[in-house]
């Protein structure tokens, strides 16, 4: 394998893992064919444009799968509904509760076909997505807790029992974050849908 091919093979790592696994050898083979026909300069010219267009596109497509979008929709509806209930129960801005509820209903109605499909065909990666979300929330908690800890540790009012309680909360959050990440890593990944093959 030439230096050019090795370089391109390394650049193929920029693509999402599923695409890379399925087509790495074909991509390198096609690049080598281009190299043999057009020479290094023209082959790299075409391939550079190809990389700059397809890497962000395929990465974005991987992130914004239909299942991810549906999951985000479900979360948004749940968050709006929860916000509405909390606003109503606490008596804080009842108007806001109504507004949040109307928004939740509007989203659910406008996206009803997508949501109905999600009920019929459950997302196999749901657990992984929930774990990622929980990990992100824990991460935010840690950053927020650390910032507050630094801020409050110099405050005389926060010495003694309060500081101990606060430390306990901080380490519990940290433990939760690590636990969630470990659980997420242990969740098996869904295999990529294989291509259709037929006998020649």
């Amino acid at each position, binding site marked *: 394998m030439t230096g050019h091919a090795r370089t391109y093979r390394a650049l193929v790592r920029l693509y999402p893992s599923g695409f890379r696994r399925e087509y790495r050898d074909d*991509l390198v083979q*096609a690049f080598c064919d281009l190299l043999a026909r057009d020479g290094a300069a023209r082959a790299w010219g075409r391939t550079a444009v190809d990389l700059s*267009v397809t890497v962000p596109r395929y990465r974005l497509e991987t992130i914004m799968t239909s299942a991810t979008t549906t999951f985000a929709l479900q979360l948004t509806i749940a968050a709006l509904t929860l916000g509405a209930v909390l606003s109503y129960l606490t008596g804080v801005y009842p108007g806001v509760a109504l507004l949040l509820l109307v928004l939740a209903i509007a989203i659910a109605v406008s996206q009803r076909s997508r949501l109905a499909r999600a009920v019929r065909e459950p997302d196999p990666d749901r657990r992984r997505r929930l774990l990622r979300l929980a990990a992100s929330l824990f991460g935010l908690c840690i950053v927020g807790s650390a910032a507050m800890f630094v801020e409050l540790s110099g405050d005389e009012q926060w010495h003694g029992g309060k500081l101990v309680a606060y430390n306990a909360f901080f380490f519990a959050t940290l433990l939760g974050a690590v636990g969630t990440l470990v659980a997420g890593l242990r969740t098996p990944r869904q295999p990529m849908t294989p291509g*259709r093959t037929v006998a020649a």
Partner: protein
Amino acid sequence: MESPDSFLPLAPAQFHVLVALTDGDLHGYAIMQAVEESSGGVVKMGPATLYGTLKRLVDAGLAEELARRPARDDDQRRRYYRLTALGQKVCLAEADRLAALVRVTRSNLRPRLS
């Protein structure tokens, strides 16, 4: 089977690959060459554009990968692709759609420009 019209309009890259496959079973690089040739050198696909397009076509059931290589080629590393029956219908439907556009364009603009 889904209606061919439900796939229209096709993305240009997908149509170019389908047209290349109307000539027979081809491997990736041969498809790249065929696309370049059929477009008069205007469309030059890169490797990832080609295989991303092929993946879409295979997932949609418009093209399929051959499990065995054609006898004329001794390179067993290459994967060959061919049109499915649905792919042929979709390709023809897209060609008809574009032909109708060409007819309208010609009938509207030719009298003015000639």
